[in-house]
């Protein structure tokens, strides 16, 4: 008799365990969905609260002339989008910003590479780079306009100058953080200098470079806008300055809103690229394999 009872017990235990697994899996899924829902609704509440406060304060606590109100801003935004004004200005700003950003990132990474190739190069130019980095580039805007004219170039350079240094320092920090043991192992394998750089040093520094790229993205926009403030007849910076001089606060905010949307889109783009490059990282692998 006991010989027949044994498998029965094992089976019962197995079924019990399976039901436990199913229960816990279901519970985990429900909890995860609930948390996502809660975060999204709380975000909506915060945003709604701010907009509501703005709406109520405008015209009661603060003069409508200074802060406009959410509905006027959206109306102005839609109107400018429909008649094409916004696109006309946005196109110019985006071009300046994008070119400046690409220039800043490229030159920043390239400088870091060159300086690393020269023995003690980083230390030699460090005070110089720190000094130039410390200069408020915005204060140079009028001079840059004088040097490079009033069209595209000075704005691109201003945008680049707000990107370059942070990317440079961050890339250098990334190079310095590569494990000495790893470098030694790969050199013993017979890697050439260029192979060492491409296979080890650049991928090791990639997280540092991408962090700098995300941090400096708004900086590129600031550079372009400042350039337009100083001298231009086109661009969102010009639009804002012009609307502001005419006390058209709704239009000012509509201009800012368009920039905000654009930076969010660009940020998503950079994050996508970063995620692709970092697809080996633990959190990414988990997500991809699930």
């Amino acid at each position, binding site marked *: 008799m006991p010989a027949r009872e044994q498998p029965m017990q094992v089976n019962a235990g197995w079924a019990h365990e399976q039901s436990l697994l199913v229960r816990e899996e279901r519970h985990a899924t429900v909890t995860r969905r609930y948390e996502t829902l809660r975060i999204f609704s709380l975000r909506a509440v915060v945003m709604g609260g701010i907009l509501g406060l703005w709406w109520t304060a405008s015209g009661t606590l603060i003069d409508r002339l200074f802060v406009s109100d959410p509905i006027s801003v959206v109306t102005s935004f839609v109107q400018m989008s429909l008649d094409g004004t916004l696109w006309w200005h946005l196109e110019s700003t985006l071009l300046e910003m994008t070119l400046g950003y690409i220039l800043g990132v490229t030159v920043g990474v390239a400088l870091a590479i060159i300086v690393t190739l020269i023995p003690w190069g980083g230390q030699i130019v460090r005070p110089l780079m720190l000094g130039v980095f410390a200069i408020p580039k915005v204060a140079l805007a009028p001079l840059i306009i004088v040097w490079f004219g009033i069209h595209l170039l000075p704005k691109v350079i201003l945008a680049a100058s707000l990107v370059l240094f942070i990317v440079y320092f961050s890339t250098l920090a990334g190079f310095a953080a590569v*494990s000495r*043991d*790893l470098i*030694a*192992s*790969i*050199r*013993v*394998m*017979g*890697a*050439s200098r260029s*192979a060492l750089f491409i*296979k*080890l040093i650049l*991928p090791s520094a990639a997280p540092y470079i991408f962090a700098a790229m995300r941090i400096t993205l708004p900086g590129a926009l600031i550079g372009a806008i400042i350039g337009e403030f100083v001298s231009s007849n086109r661009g969102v910076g010009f639009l804002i300055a012009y609307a502001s001089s005419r006390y058209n606060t709704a239009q000012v905010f509509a201009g800012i809103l368009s920039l905000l949307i654009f930076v969010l889109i660009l940020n998503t783009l950079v994050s996508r690229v970063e995620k692709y490059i*970092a697809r*080996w*990282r*633990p959190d990414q*692998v988990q997500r991809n394999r699930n």
Partner: protein
Amino acid sequence: MAPATSVLEARNVYKVFVARGGKARTALRNVELTIRRGEFVCLVGPSGCGKSTVLNMFAGLVTPSDGTILHDGRTITDVNTHVGYVTQDDNLLPWRTALGNVELALECKSVGRAERRERAFDYLARVGLKGNEELYPHELSGGMRKRVSIVRTLVDDSVDVILMDEPFGPLDAQTRLILQDELLRLWQGTGRTIVFVTHDIVEAIALSDRIAIFTSVPGSIKQVRDVTLPRPRDVFHIHETPGFSTIYDAIWNDLREEILKGRDDAGA
């Protein structure tokens, strides 16, 4: 009988390190060591005695302050790309899969893509990692990462000397034994030379043909002892092999003196 040829030689080697404060200290004093072709040699000694420094000199990563290091009769002056080097940490590239990491050494030696892949698959299978080729290092256990790291150097057949710096140090006791066993199987019959740094006497006896015992710092070779236990060896029951306790006691006696001396020096 023809004398066994030497592969690696340390002749009259000194190493002086200058500390941060500017004070120089002798780390290695007159190290004389000959590694013969095809043998498995362990370097043991009290911690800080410079055994890893000697290994780094064979790899060309550290240059002696005086004396010469020879590989196949040629003086090593730069990084020695004719050896394989397994470090204590597994030093895998985190953004490459197990397969990609094993292919790395072959890429550096410009082996073609198809051949590279085939050999990497073959070697991973030999250490029981078949089916795990596409996993990233962080998805592998410590023992599996160590296997990848060892296989990465073995897969390069242009290399006939493998240097190992306490490779099994960070592993748990059971995994260590299993890996020692696997290493012996991978090595046996290949004719390759292995120089293996460890502080574990049992591990040294289980693996090696000869054991070089270092003095405490400044390190020099105190004694080289032959391990005559028959091969293939059973690492799991090595301490039951006849002759084990004799060699163990001899090495422990050599080492104990040095450890006590090192302790007295530190205390003085």
